[in-house]
């Protein structure tokens, strides 16, 4: 059953005629052409599909698109301001905190959400928050270092 769902996506209003029960992940990737959000497991175990809803990290494979009606959603495509990368994106690039890059959008958005909630996280807070995001290439060491460096660059504030 299709319904009208309106949301703010990457800063712009979007109006969809869609079955509100469909997972947000697939609506983003196939209806809206935003392919930066990745499928990794489909059951919320890996974090590759992480997006921000009202600034907080959520797994889009388990989230009905109807649940984000009237809300603000940010995907990896909406994080940079023009050509200016978000400090977390910049830190990931500078630390080589990625290999195949497939888990990277989810890692970055989860880290952005962490720094919003805890601007100066300890290493154990970083590990605890990132624990549910899987990376098979083994970039973990550099991801932690990148998040620490981004937190420092952001100086405890928000961007």
């Amino acid at each position, binding site marked *: 059953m299709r319904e009208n769902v309106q949301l703010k996506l990457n800063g712009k209003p979007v109006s969809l005629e869609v079955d509100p029960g469909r997972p947000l992940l697939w609506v983003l990737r196939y209806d809206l052409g935003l392919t930066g959000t990745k499928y990794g497991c489909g059951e919320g175990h890996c974090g590759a599909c992480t997006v921000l809803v009202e600034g907080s990290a959520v797994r889009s494979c388990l989230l009905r698109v109807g649940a984000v009606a009237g809300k603000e959603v940010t995907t990896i495509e909406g994080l940079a301001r023009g050509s200016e990368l978000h400090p977390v994106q910049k830190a990931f690039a500078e630390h080589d905190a990625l290999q195949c890059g497939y888990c990277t959008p989810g890692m970055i958005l989860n880290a952005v959400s962490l720094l919003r909630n805890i601007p100066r996280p300890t290493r154990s807070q970083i590990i605890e928050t990132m624990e549910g995001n899987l990376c*098979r290439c083994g970039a973990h060491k550099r991801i932690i270092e990148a998040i620490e460096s981004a937190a420092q660059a952001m100086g405890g504030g928000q961007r």
Partner: protein
Amino acid sequence: MKRHDGKQRNIYDEYLERDFTDAPESEGLALPLDRRQFLQLAGGGIAVAFCIPGSLLAQQRGRRGGEGQQLPEDFNAFLRIGEDGRVTGFTGKVELGQGIITSLAQMLADELDVPLESVDMVMGDTDLCPWDRGTFGSMTTRFFGPPFRAAAAEAKAVLVELAAEKLGVTKDRLKTRDGAVYDDAGQKKVTYAELAKGKKILRHLKGAPVEKPGEFTLVGKGLDRRDAVEKVTGRAKYAGDIREPGMLCARILRPPSHDAKFLRVDTSAAREVAGTQVVQDGDLIAVLHESPDLAEQALARLKPEYDQPAASVDDRTIFDHLLKVAPPGETVAEGGNLGAGQSAAHHVVENTYLNSYVAHAPMEPHTALAKVEGNKVTIWASTQTPFALKDEAASLLGLPAQNVRVITPYVGGGFGGKSNNRQALEAVRLAKLTGKPVQVAWTRAEEFFYDTFRPAAVVKVRAGVTEAGLISFWDYGVYFAGERGSQHFYDIPNHRTVAYSGGWTGVPGSHPFATGPWRAPANNTNTFARESHIDALAAKAGIDPVEFRLKNLKDPRMRRVLEAAAKKFGWSPAKAPSGRGYGVACGTDVGTVVAHIAEVAVNKQTGSVRVKRVVCAQEMGLCVNPEGARIQMEGCITMGLGYALAEEIKFAGGKIHDSNFDTYTLPRFSWLPEIETVIVDAKESPAQGGGEPAVICMGGVLANAVFDATGARVLQLPMTPERIKAALARV
């Protein structure tokens, strides 16, 4: 070649099993380049005819499949200089995360004397790139690097000659810098772009010398990844991100187990889902929809029936089963006299080592999009073997190979698993049947089900040590892992190494599902067994495990990395078990030597292991990009925690119990030890492999550290808490 399960054997399997460092020449497996030629190409500065790599690859190919294929001799196949001065490098290799998009550009820019920023890489496109066997075996830098650099050296020599004619200056008075040719007085200049004009360069100059290590400007420098910005912004495209007008997403009916027999299916309910197309073609039953989640809903409405035989083996009984069905062994290496060695032994240790099936589990499951237009086929695939896929797809549709183009976008991890192109051939078949572009993107459950697992394996070792602490004999048999890494490198006078079913696909009736190459195939199993056993001998002899290895080791490269690791770690000698939880292991793979030292803490109540620190020293010959090499070492160490401590496939017969990451555990952030990497300098030696070596020691180094902490020798990977508790109970 047909496999026991009737599936076509991957023609590259045999080739993949080799790491080209210990292949006996008598078997006819010539190295693509022999040692001497490598030295010349990799920096000796001696002019080498450019046709050598191609002809040797062709010679080797004759035995290993890919008939009629070899690297082109024309340097234009490897690079193009645009009218705007940008340089494009072409390679059949693909970027899976290993970082060759950076290191190849680095080699090209250095050899050609152009700014790194002006180089773009086109990778894994079968219409644009020179033929390639596949991205596996850590072969890019070792085997594609030399001809790639030689192509750039020849192009530069031709450009200098063209510049000499254009400027009216003799060649010896010209120098190259930043994509231009200058005279030595600095008066005259012409850019490569002006000389090449964006066209193929028709002149050739055989024998242009490649740079010597002292001449490098970029090679040897640690550079950041060149794909990072695309990957942190979500702009990087993977196979599943490609869209074609009218594209349908397919979900395919899968059997509940590999041994289930399909009887029938009722598709009527699935057809009721609006926008769904159901296709049934022999064993291929698929539902297609514009959106994958709606295809999934339709798939769930299929009502199939299967005949399910009783399971014959499971993850507990598999090892006895494998020993029962093992074929006769083949001797990999032998020397001296085992009987004499046994007589000389003061202590004899005999152990059987086991490891379970392990999944590749790349974060991106197998994905492909296929488009069939008339007799032309285009495939975008997550694959490690685009050229093999081209041939496979052509053969499937009965088309000439030139009608098929495979484009490889970024690949979201492979580790050997994406040498298998099943998903792409499914997409081709469905595109042909429906007349529409079809995407096949496996779910995580499909990825686990059709993975070509690292095989379960058994290693039996019997060895002895003299009163003086010298290893007097070594009798080693490996079952089903494969022979890569099975040969020891210690100084042992009497020894024998035998491989039973050397290949990873096993023999008929051995594995209940497909098995295949997994990062450093066979070597993880062999290094775990060898290094555990060496440690057991050291303990029996009452000698510190680092000292014991050095005492029994002449190989200068291995000694050097072991000493470098011990120094970095701050090793102080002690007999194991010392209670400190320190372990050591060393090994060799793809021409590179590595030594690891780890520190662990073991909770004796729960059996859980906390890896606190891992130091890894690696000697890999000329290291093109030390930053990239370190990332690979860190990745190997982190990935290796998984197969050492947790990863194993649970199954009964052909039924795979693991279908997602809730039961199959990958290493997580909280597992991360302190990792320190040392690259031992050897830039005068040819470049060796970097993607795999540092993963091979992880089983052995952690097993030895657990022994040092507790006195319990764990003989089976992964070392789960249950197995550690069982080993503790035996102490």
